[in-house]
């Protein structure tokens, strides 16, 4: 049985291109999990071990986070490599949910970039304690002190340097450990030989000053350390304890540094991971008790308690369907019987494995705190497994609704079957990815969180399932809404020949801020018999599925039914359903309908001289600038821009800033489109609805 205090479940999370995959690769090398280092986009055609999907290798980005396991200083370390692109934040969020701690990798040159901010916000949401690693100190312009200051200013961390660099840029040789006050050099072809030596004489003074600053900050978390400082009896152990305490409470971010690419600073970072990040017992995890009205329930890392495990990621690998699980409580053993708390289906645990990127190491059992892979069990990502003794689910993860869709059409009939297989798998793997068939056009529609998100799945269909598809133009997920209260009084009457139909409804509709649809029945005196009320509601609900302005769902509508009439023979469920549908069709133009569009929060970072050009790109796209922040020659622009205007933005931004700007984008909210755009959309979708306007 594994000693839980020696398990670390960590994530390596950061901005794209800050070098986190390279860092992970070094970690695996130093922990003897791999015996050769391959670079991201390397010349050796192998690619980094964690970037195992073909596409990732080609683009040099991490898309799906692979879980891997390594050993360091007698500790089991499970590492989740997380993607850096905003379109894949669901992956990041899901990974963070199962992590106990994280390393935030920052580029020593670019510092805190917009994506670092998004990732940091997510970590804060899931209360993940973190260490920072300032990477790329070998690059020109590297300045770890400035980056640490940005951690404080931009991300509001209490960042404290635990090391100082020995030389920067092409003179970067190693680091000074401010706790031991020793210089650390990394010798050998791959930096595998750690050599501890004396601090270079010319840095002695600087190191002493930095140690004093570090002790000042760290002593806030330990009275013992404060006392020891006063009595000049500081020990390494006391400092470690204080740093750990501050890190666990997320009040302190210890900062380490180096250059993963040049094999510098990685081993001390691993020491810090095992020293300062929490073990599974030190993190409180809660689930919901399904047998007690979803009351929150605290899980304990006790292996003897009933099993609770979360499936946080699915993959179809060379070993078949593969489910990554985090065990929160109890024990998961091969051959045991487990239940999916969503479907209530029982499964028998087959093979279990510890994943090392695409390779696997088989194990017999896993305990609370472990991250493992399970084979051959059909489930969706986010499902909870228990043994049969309790009915618990892990609290739901925040899953945003898709904002963009695309029609896909296989080029031949052979591709058709494979496409269904591929889509079925992607939907199970990624809750932000949806696929379905449009009943009118009979086209297959995929939807997701951004252009690149969908592009990646189209590519994966091609590469992994050999499916060639033609894609339509990306379609923004508009919505319709009403903007004022309006009364309805509608009769549905068909009394000529055969069985008749009669239903009369009156009341009003009004806009509401929260929720999609609310139906209130205020009919008194049985003018509409109670049994027909659900039919009226159903009729309205059906009408809302497709708005009459441009054919998108109508949201934010409250319907209040106040009166009506029925007929003893001709009234029926069907008649009242039709009356509800007709009533909404009649009242919709009177309620001043509007089109809503998804608006994205855009952040663009560029050198100062391009801020005018960047601003123009936002203005041209009906964007609203929220503000600009200048800092050290760089300018960060925050804006809100309609998604429909953002297609091809990457190319435009590159061309107007000589490729020196970068942006990140995430869904912000739905907003009303301006009148002229609404008219344009109505024309485009062939709408003939005349909005009644008395203003």
């Amino acid at each position, binding site marked *: 049985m594994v000693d839980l205090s020696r398990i670390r479940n960590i994530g390596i999370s950061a901005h794209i291109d800050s070098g986190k995959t390279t860092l992970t690769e070094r970690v695996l090398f130093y922990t003897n999990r791999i015996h050769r280092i391959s670079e991201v986009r390397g010349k050796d055609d192998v690619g980094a071990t964690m970037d195992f999907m073909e596409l990732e290798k080609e683009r040099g980005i991490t898309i799906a986070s692979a879980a891997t396991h390594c050993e360091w200083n007698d500790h089991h370390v499970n590492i989740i490599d997380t993607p850096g692109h905003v379109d894949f934040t669901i992956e990041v969020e899901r990974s963070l949910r199962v992590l106990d701690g994280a390393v935030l990798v920052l580029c020593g040159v670019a510092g805190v970039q917009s994506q670092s901010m998004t990732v940091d916000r997510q970590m804060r949401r899931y209360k993940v304690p973190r260490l920072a690693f300032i990477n790329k100190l070998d690059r020109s312009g590297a300045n770890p002190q400035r980056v640490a200051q940005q951690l404080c200013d931009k991300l509001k961390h209490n960042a404290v340097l635990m090391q100082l660099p020995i030389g920067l840029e092409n003179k970067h040789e190693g680091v000074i450990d401010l706790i031991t006050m020793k210089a650390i050099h990394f010798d050998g072809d791959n930096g595998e030989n750690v050599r501890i030596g004396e601090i270079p004489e010319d840095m002695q003074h600087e190191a002493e000053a930095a140690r004093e600053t570090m002790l000042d900050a760290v002593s806030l978390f330990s009275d013992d350390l404060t006392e020891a400082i006063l009595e000049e009896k500081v020990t390494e152990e006391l400092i470690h304890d204080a740093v750990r305490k501050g890190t666990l409470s997320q009040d302190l971010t210890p900062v380490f540094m180096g250059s993963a690419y040049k094999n510098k600073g990685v081993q001390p970072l691993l020491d810090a991971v095992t020293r300062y990040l929490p073990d599974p017992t030190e993190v409180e995890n809660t689930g919901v008790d399904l047998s007690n009205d979803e009351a929150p329930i605290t899980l304990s890392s006790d292996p003897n308690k009933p099993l609770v495990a979360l499936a946080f990621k699915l993959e179809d690998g060379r070993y078949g369907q593969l489910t990554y699980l985090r065990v929160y409580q109890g024990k998961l053993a091969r051959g045991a019987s487990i239940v999916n708390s969503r479907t209530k289906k029982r499964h028998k645990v087959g093979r279990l494995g510890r994943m090392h990127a695409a390779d696997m190491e088989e194990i017999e059992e896993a305990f609370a705190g472990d991250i493992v892979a399970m084979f051959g069990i059909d489930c969706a990502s986010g499902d909870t497994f228990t043994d049969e003794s309790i009915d618990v689910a892990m609290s739901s993860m925040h899953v945003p609704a898709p904002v963009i869709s695309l029609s896909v059409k296989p080029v031949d009939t052979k591709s058709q079957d494979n496409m269904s297989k591929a889509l079925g798998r992607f939907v199970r793997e990624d809750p932000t990815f949806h696929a379905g068939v449009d009943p009118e056009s009979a086209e297959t529609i995929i939807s997701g969180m951004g252009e690149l998100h969908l592009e990646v799945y189209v590519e994966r269909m091609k590469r992994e399932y050999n499916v060639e598809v033609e894609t339509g133009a990306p379609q923004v997920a508009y919505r319709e809404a009403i903007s004022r209260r309006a009364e309805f009084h509608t009769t549905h009457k068909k009394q000529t020949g055969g069985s008749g139909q009669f239903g009369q409804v009156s009341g009003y509709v009004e806009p509401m801020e929260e929720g999609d649809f609310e139906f209130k029945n205020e009919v008194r005196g049985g003018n509409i018999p109670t049994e027909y009320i659900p039919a009226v509601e159903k009729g309205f609900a059906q009408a809302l599925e497709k708005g009459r302005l441009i054919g998108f769902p109508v949201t934010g509508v409250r319907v209040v039914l106040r009166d009506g009439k029925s007929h003893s023979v001709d009234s029926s469920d069907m008649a009242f359903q039709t009356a509800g549908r007709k009533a909404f069709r009649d009242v919709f133009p009177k309620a001043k309908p509007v089109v809503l569009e998804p608006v994205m929060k855009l952040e663009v970072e560029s050198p100062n001289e391009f801020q005018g050009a960047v601003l*123009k790109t936002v*203005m041209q796209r009906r964007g609203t600038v*929220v*503000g*600009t922040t*200048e800092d*050290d020659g760089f300018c960060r622009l925050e804006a809100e821009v309609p998604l429909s205007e953002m297609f091809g933005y990457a190319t435009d931004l590159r061309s107007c800033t000589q490729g020196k700007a970068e942006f990140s984008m995430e869904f912000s909210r739905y907003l*009303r489109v301006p009148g002229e755009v609404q008219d344009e959309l109505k024309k485009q979708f062939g709408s003939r609805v005349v909005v009644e306007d008395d203003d």
Partner: protein
Amino acid sequence: MKKRFLNARSPLRLLEQGLHGGLGQGNLGVVIAAHGVGKTSFLVGVAVDELLRDGRVLHVSCSHPVAHVRAHYDTVFEDLAQSKHLENEGLIHGEIDRHRSIRVVPPGTLTPATLRDAVKVERETGAPPSLIVVEGLDAAELTREDLQDLRSLAGELEAEIWLESTCSDERSVSVPKGLEAQSDLVGVILALEPGQGAVGLRALKDHDNPDVSALHVSLDPRTLLLVRS
């Protein structure tokens, strides 16, 4: 209430009456108060008033991040919209967001020159601002040349520029020494003083008008918006 009525009835018109016409284009205004009394809120109130009258505002801050400044505007606008039952609130909110630009610069880097650069960017991408709010830069610490430069910028733009200054005495605000010698360059100087149940606003300088007693109004202590007496 419709926007045009809201404007006509804005308590800011009281301020203008009290000041014999307000700050006026091409002039510098300074609001002085102790820490935490609400200089920023007051200035945001002035800016929102300008935005509601279809003006354009540039808000430069070296003390708060963009999200913080924006939240200030949202609060002031929402308070106003709700208390006056403003029609088409969402649309007007969107409009004023588009006509307001927030620029954050690191402390210590804000000078009349950087302000000119900011205005240049505004000009390149849209219309120049009709009101500039400078937050986090103490007017009393500016040199005479700086103030002169700011005033000429206000003149060139035909805009009003509002600055702030912090004093130590909360209840009896006077023109700080650093600003006294330069006060000829400033059109209007206002003092904010916390009183019982309200914050008092009085003029310490009103252009060339020797009688500054005409302006003495109360502000809502929560929102720092002017209240009609």
